């Protein structure tokens, strides 16, 4: 049943699934970009710069749950929608995004674990992930999100404008959505 669901998700429903997925990705970007503006432009202290959701529901940010939840959704989305990327280049870049996001998700898993267990690694006063040993958290996750998003959007662009091939109908994600005359 899961396989059938994935077949639908990567077949007739690929475009719909991609639109929903990109909405989530862009909403998450909105949060991080707003956090950046809160810190870098408005001069808010870092603990108070929590984006939009965190502004109204601070516990979502401090509990690490929202961060981890989003990271997992990203990994699942990248993995589940990967089969729909059938051309070499678009699949390559989508896979790059998946690999990086998997590591990013592990970092958030470590943060969530420390918050849940009430024990911080490396004798730090706050939950700390591996790369965070050296790199400040806000800038680190701005970087993670950037290097996941960029290959993802490159893959999506290639997917929206695939090469026309005889006998190979394009996914409905393709802008032209035309079937090659040879396939008719």
């Amino acid at each position, binding site marked *: 049943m899961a396989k059938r669901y994935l077949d639908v998700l990567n077949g007739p429903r690929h475009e719909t699934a991609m639109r929903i997925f990109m909405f989530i990705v862009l909403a998450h*970007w909105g949060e991080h*970009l707003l956090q*950046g*503006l809160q*810190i*870098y*432009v408005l001069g808010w202290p870092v603990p108070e710069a929590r984006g939009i959701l965190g502004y109204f529901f601070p516990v979502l940010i401090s509990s690490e749950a929202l961060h981890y939840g989003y990271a997992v959704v990203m990994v699942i989305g990248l993995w589940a929608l990967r089969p729909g990327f059938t*051309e*070499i*280049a*678009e699949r390559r870049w989508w896979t790059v995004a998946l690999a990086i996001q998997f590591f990013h998700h592990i970092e958030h898993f470590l943060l969530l674990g420390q918050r849940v267990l009430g024990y911080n690694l490396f004798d730090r006063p706050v939950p700390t992930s591996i790369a965070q040993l*050296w*790199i*400040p958290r*806000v*800038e*680190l996750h*701005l*970087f993670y999100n*950037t*290097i996941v*998003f*960029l*290959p993802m*959007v*490159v893959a999506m*662009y*290639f997917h*929206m*404008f*695939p*090469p*026309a*091939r005889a006998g190979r109908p394009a996914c409905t994600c393709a*802008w032209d959505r035309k079937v090659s005359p040879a396939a008719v």
Partner: protein
Amino acid sequence: MGAHNLIRVAISLFVVLLVGVSSLGWVWVGTHLSPAQALAGRVVLTAGIVAAGAAVSMLWRWNPGSGNNSPHGRPN
């Protein structure tokens, strides 16, 4: 302007926004963090900006329908 160009412009504008925020961060870390943390922050922010430039370059170098520089490899 074709659809593919409109999409590329939209993506490029968003990337410009990312680069802008990263640049603001680049300045901010220098005045608010310790030298070591500022350096580390600047390294990753710079890496992100370079990656953004590479991605936008990749998008604009490829024109759909131009078989010669298609990133999808040779047609079957």
